[in-house]
């Protein structure tokens, strides 16, 4: 059980000791005004509720719980590794993207008592202290969590909260479930209107003068006499956040923390993507590990076998006839 308010209680007891050292009895001793002020500030800081069971010390246990239809699990941060293809057992070709869940750890737990909502901040990857800014290092130090390369917050329901420092692996997902994958798309640079907005362009011949790929008209005449805001025009394309929905998880490799997922994912190889349970094609509640998959202690992660999605029993090619 992770003591959530450990950092807060340490600082509180420290403050109390400092106050004891400095403050004898403000009523009796003729201290100067500055030290009295200092003591008053200390007193104010120490005037928090004495019992530790109040503000901020909610106990979150690392135990599997029962999932309701209304509960929401965390998402996960992964690195897009590349694409391959496999043949499934029926001989059909499946395009696969490989996503690597690189050392996902819960870096901060946000609770209704302190922040007003329930969320988990997940961190992915590793980073050296010298490559991080001082505020970022301070954040990791305050939480007591290793330095991560990418942080992302996932809103969850209260029963899906995880203790600080829990690692989330590939077994958080089930093979055969659907997920939504969000990523920053590849940059395409300054693009014309045909690529950017799927315009039809102009005529290729028949006397079209220098307007084969142009925008055409941008509006009416002197009523309204302006071009409307948001008019689709050439410009920078790509490097936007996009979500691909209902992506089918084909295979899970728990030994390497890999997710094999069908189809294309936004972003280039090496970029971070965020994976969540699908909103439209909801997975089977009874089988999902909730709040996440807690590995039994005697299990050696290097020896786990990959889990492949169970495909339909009937031959899809024969079924068409």
């Amino acid at each position: 059980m992770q003591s959530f308010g450990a950092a807060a209680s340490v600082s509180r007891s420290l403050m109390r000791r400092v106050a004891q050292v400095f403050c004898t009895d403000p009523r009796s001793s003729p201290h100067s005004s500055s030290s009295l002020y200092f003591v008053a500030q200390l007193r104010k800081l120490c005037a928090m509720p004495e019992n530790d069971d109040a503000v901020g010390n909610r106990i979150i246990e690392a135990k599997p719980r029962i999932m309701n239809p209304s509960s929401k699990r965390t998402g996960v941060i992964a690195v897009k590794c590349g694409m391959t293809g496999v043949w499934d057992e029926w001989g059909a070709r499946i395009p696969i993207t490989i996503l690597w869940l690189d050392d996902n750890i819960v870096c901060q737990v946000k609770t209704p008592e302190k922040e007003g909502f329930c969320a988990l901040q997940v961190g992915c990857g590793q980073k050296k202290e010298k490559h991080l800014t001082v505020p970022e290092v301070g954040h990791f130090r305050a939480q007591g969590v290793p330095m991560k390369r990418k942080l992302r917050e996932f809103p969850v329901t209260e029963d899906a909260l995880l203790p600080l420092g829990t690692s989330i692996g590939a077994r958080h997902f089930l093979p055969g479930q659907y997920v939504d994958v969000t990523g920053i798309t590849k940059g395409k640079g300054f693009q014309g209107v045909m690529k950017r907005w799927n315009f039809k362009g102009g005529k290729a011949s028949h006397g079209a003068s220098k307007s084969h790929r142009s925008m055409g008209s941008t509006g009416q005449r002197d009523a309204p006499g302006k071009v409307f805001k948001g008019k689709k025009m050439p410009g920078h394309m790509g490097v936007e956040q996009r979500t691909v929905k209902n992506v089918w998880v084909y295979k899970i490799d728990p030994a390497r923390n890999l997710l094999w997922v069908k189809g294309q994912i936004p972003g280039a190889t090496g970029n971070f993507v965020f994976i969540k349970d699908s909103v439209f094609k909801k997975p089977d509640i009874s089988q999902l590990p909730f709040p996440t998959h807690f590995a039994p202690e005697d299990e050696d992660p290097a020896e786990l076998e990959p889990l492949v999605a169970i495909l339909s029993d009937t031959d899809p090619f024969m079924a068409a006839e």
Partner: protein
Amino acid sequence: MFYLISALLQIIDREAVEEVRSNREIPEIKPGYDIQLKVEVPENKRRISTIKGTVIAKRNAGLQSTFRIRRHEAGVCIESLFPLYSPNIKEMKVLGKRRVRKAKLYYLRDRMNALKKQ
């Protein structure tokens, strides 16, 4: 981290190739070989058809390696592209080898008689 990722894909590819090779016997295929395949076509009610022809090209891409066969069938020349590690190729047999001095024998497309002479 990019080295890790490209190495990871190479490792996964290599493992997949080894798995296929351990299950099935795949002979060495080079351009200029005459081979005979038994292919199961899932779209065609899973009939197993025998294809006999010359390998005119081979593309090495790990698990996605492919090869092209050129065959003469019912008066028509047909070129087909097959993935080397496809589970639909049930059997592969090398019938003969020819000495060729190229990796891709696309020149055979221009010469109808070259196939017959060799």
